[in-house]
């Protein structure tokens, strides 16, 4: 599920400066920071999906155990 989400794909580097002006160099720094934000967003998504899978699996196991539990006198 996580593999199919595409969130594990590498985050590419920002396009390099197109000229030698201070503005372009500074804009590159900001672009690269944006890529860092994307990488961290992907990582957060993967972490959240992992937690969701773990939680759902634990809940399913717990529910299955509850439903298959032997009942005292067939009631409790």
């Amino acid at each position, binding site marked *: 599920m996580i593999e199919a*989400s595409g969130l594990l794909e590498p985050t590419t580097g920002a396009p390099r400066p197109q000229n030698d002006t*201070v*503005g372009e160099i500074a804009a590159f720094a900001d672009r690269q920071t944006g890529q860092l934000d994307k990488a961290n967003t992907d990582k957060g998504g993967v972490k959240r999906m992992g937690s969701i899978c773990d939680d*759902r699996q634990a809940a399913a196991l717990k529910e299955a155990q509850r439903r298959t539990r032997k009942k005292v006198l067939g009631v409790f």
Partner: protein
Amino acid sequence: MKLPKLTLPRTTGWRLALTAIIIVVAWTILAAIVQWWNAPREAAQQRGEAITQQEATKGTGEAAQAALQTVTEVRREIVRIDATTRRNDHAIKSAADAGTRAPGVAAALHDSLCRRASYQREPDCAAVLGNDRGLGPAGTDDGRAPATE
């Protein structure tokens, strides 16, 4: 010499038959008891397996739905990040002195980026990496490639 006639008691055949019948009946009863004893357990085991499978399937479905929602949220965040980048780009390039040239800094930045995994495969990085290994082509001894592409 005449041998005495050997005759089995008449009751022996009946006894054998009766014994066989008793064994068959006992075996049948035993098999029935075993069947009666095991049947509920097998049924309970099958029921338990079915419930576990059912819950696992339900859990997987819920997890898939939640995962899809997560991917959607991540994509929305990526769109927001790109929008911020575009806005920042405009602000930075509109700032005073943004047009000031800094060729030395740009060249150093170019070479520095070439040493990063993200950019090493760029065609114009070959010379920089070659220089780093001492294999650079002639004319690039200063370790710098052109600042602009």
